[in-house]
């Protein structure tokens, strides 16, 4: 009996304490994950080298010169991060510094008043504003107000190729779509996959559509879609884009198993530098990763790069580019005043310092700061850096990645439909119709 009583007492005690325990844990939660406490701020960033080291060094340097305003960083994988940050913001648990790609996602944050309006702050700091490429502010602006600090580097989508494999085939990089189709045959006959693709990530496949639509229909087609004009997706250029993609898939243009390869694991890059695939359409950011992981593939000059081929009869300017004009950092509206101050200080003094700019250049990226031409030209990677710089600077239209430009709802529908288009489980016509139904969502 005594035993029973004691256990009953502990049960009751537990029952009495539990609500407080729950309250205590939830109270911890509201202060935000990764909260640094004191005068610090929290930030979530993408894992993966070389950028993870660069940003960690920047944060450490900022922390040692501002011991009271340390930044606590947590790293996440790209695709996991995109979901997690949205959920965290919806739950009021966002980190102080909200990393992203601007565009449609930033617009939903801004319209829900989840991120700070930085317009007046930028006006008060003209030096900072003038430091960056003017074009990089486009995707940071919602309804005429700036909600994010552009940073890091400009990242156009580039056609990479393996020079060794091309030499073996005695081939030249494709200039037109006909070249592409004949190269597909050449490489398939050699037993090498023509194009590497991490199709399970889906935004990788999307990059093909971005360039094709731009080359076929010109910048106006996507601009109409972006503006939500009626039947914008039903443009004949969209259907021709889908048709071209399915022709390429049918011809065996992509590596076997492309729809089960993810880009997060960098398997698509590995296929290129191991010579299992001849070409890869990917972001310029993969240059740094391949330089790091590909043994001496990049250093030995075996990596080639070119602009996207032209389409016969296409309306688009062949100089047009697509990709990410920059990366962006916003400040959570839910953060405390001291956290916001720390974040602004970090934006001003910590994030794009000369050390960081040099680190980006050394890793093969073009930082979005003005007046870096000399630095680019003296870099061992000058060929690639100048190529990217010229592409970004001379492009009559630099289209932001669709999945970032569109609203999250439309973007998810787009990625899902692209996946099915590549699998040929829907026709180009169905693709256009399915996407047309998402206009205005």
């Amino acid at each position, binding site marked *: *009996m005594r035993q029973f009583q004691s256990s009953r007492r502990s049960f009751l005690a537990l029952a009495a304490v539990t609500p407080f325990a729950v309250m205590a844990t939830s109270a911890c939660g509201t202060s935000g994950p990764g909260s640094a406490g004191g005068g610090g701020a929290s930030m979530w960033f993408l894992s993966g080298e070389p950028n993870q080291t660069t940003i960690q060094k920047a944060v450490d340097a900022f922390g040692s010169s501002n011991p009271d305003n340390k930044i606590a960083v947590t790293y996440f994988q790209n695709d996991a991060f995109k979901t997690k940050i949205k959920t965290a913001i919806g739950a009021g648990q966002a980190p102080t510094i909200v990393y992203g790609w601007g565009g449609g996602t930033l617009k939903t944050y801004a319209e829900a008043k989840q991120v700070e309006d930085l317009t007046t702050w930028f006006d008060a700091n003209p030096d900072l504003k003038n430091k960056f490429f003017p074009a990089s502010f486009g995707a940071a602006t919602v309804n005429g107000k700036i909600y994010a600090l552009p940073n890091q580097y400009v990242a156009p989508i580039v056609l990479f190729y393996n020079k060794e494999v091309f030499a073996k085939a005695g081939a030249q990089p494709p200039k037109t779509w006909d070249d592409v189709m004949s190269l597909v045959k050449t490489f398939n006959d050699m037993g090498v996959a023509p194009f590497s693709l991490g199709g399970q990530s889906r935004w990788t496949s999307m990059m093909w559509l971005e360039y094709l639509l731009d080359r076929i229909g010109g910048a106006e087609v996507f601009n109409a879609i972006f503006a939500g004009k009626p039947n914008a997706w039903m443009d004949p250029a969209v259907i021709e884009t889908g048709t071209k993609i399915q022709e390429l898939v049918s011809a065996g243009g992509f590596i076997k198993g492309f729809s*089960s390869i993810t880009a997060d694991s960098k398997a698509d890059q590995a296929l290129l530098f191991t010579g299992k695939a001849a070409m890869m359409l990917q972001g310029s950011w993969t240059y740094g990763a391949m330089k790091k992981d590909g043994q001496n593939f990049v250093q030995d000059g075996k990596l080639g790069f070119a602009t996207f081929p032209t389409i016969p009869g296409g309306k688009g300017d062949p100089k047009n580019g697509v990709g990410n004009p920059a990366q962006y950092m916003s400040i959570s509206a839910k953060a405390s005043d001291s956290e916001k101050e720390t974040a602004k200080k970090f934006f001003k003094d910590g994030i794009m310092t000369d050390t960081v700019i040099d680190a980006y250049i050394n890793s093969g990226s073009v930082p979005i700061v003005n007046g870096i031409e000399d630095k680019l030209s003296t870099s061992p990677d000058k060929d690639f850096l100048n190529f990217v710089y010229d592409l970004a600077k001379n492009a009559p239209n630099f289209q932001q990645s669709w999945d970032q430009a569109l609203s999250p709802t439309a973007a998810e529908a787009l990625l899902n439909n692209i996946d099915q288009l590549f699998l040929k489980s829907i026709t180009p016509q169905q693709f256009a119709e399915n996407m047309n139904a998402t206009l205005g969502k």
Partner: protein
Amino acid sequence: MSSSTTHRAANVSRSSERRPAQKSALPWLTLPALFFFLVFAVVPLVGVLVLSFADWDGIGAIGAAGMENWASVLTDPGLYNALGLTFMIMIVSWLVQTPISLLLGVFTAGSQRYRAALAVLYFLPLLLSSAAVAIAYKALLDPNFGLAMGLGLPFLAQDWLGVPQLALGLVIFVIAWQFVPFHTLIYQGGVRQIPKSLYEAAQIDGAGTIKQFFHITLPQLKYTIITSSTLMVVGSLTYFDLIFVLTGGGPGNSTRILALDMYLRGFRANLMGPASVIAVILVVIGLALALFLQRLGGKDKQGSQLEGL
């Protein structure tokens, strides 16, 4: 045993005469459980029901949507694709897992020493988390860098996760690989509960191993089968992590089961309302299936299996 514990044990057995007093104290014991059930089960359940009639993108303000979410989800072919896949995986998983785990359970319930060693092997997958299992399989099955190429067996280098039919089959296989050990454990426990006297009597009557299996083991395992099947069937509604990591619902929508569909709608497409509709549908299906299987067990299920011997 010390004298004080003997004393305490005597106290406890004596106190059993005052059962009514103890019984009246028992409802208090359920309070913590009831509290957790309310906070973590009932409140979210009601919340989801409310959200299924709301217009919410997960970030901004919540507005009323009336029947809009329900209408849009119920007319969406994606729902029926997800429902079909969910039931397909449920049924095929049951058909694959039940015989294997039943036989393994009967086998490992034996007492020879080598069986214990084998049983450890069988139970190994049980120790791994779904995410780890999925990542490992993904790496092994990679058509370019996977196990098949490593072993020099190119015929095994299929595009396992990239072809819709193969991917679905593979998902079912990996699920079975992961969950068979758990159900084997349940069956092992069930078999060990069967009184030895039954087998002794059968042996005297001249029944062989196979006859013993079909006339004693299987009927005696009736409730174990129902328990295991309930867990399997209702559990299959919540398969998520493994498929999410393995295929992400793809290729296309070929492995986008209901639970995954709910997640992708809610957290990827910012459509919390339609995602809540799917959640409600999942709850209803789960309850219906659990009740159905309970029925199958008959009314005497709660009684001891040893009664009437």
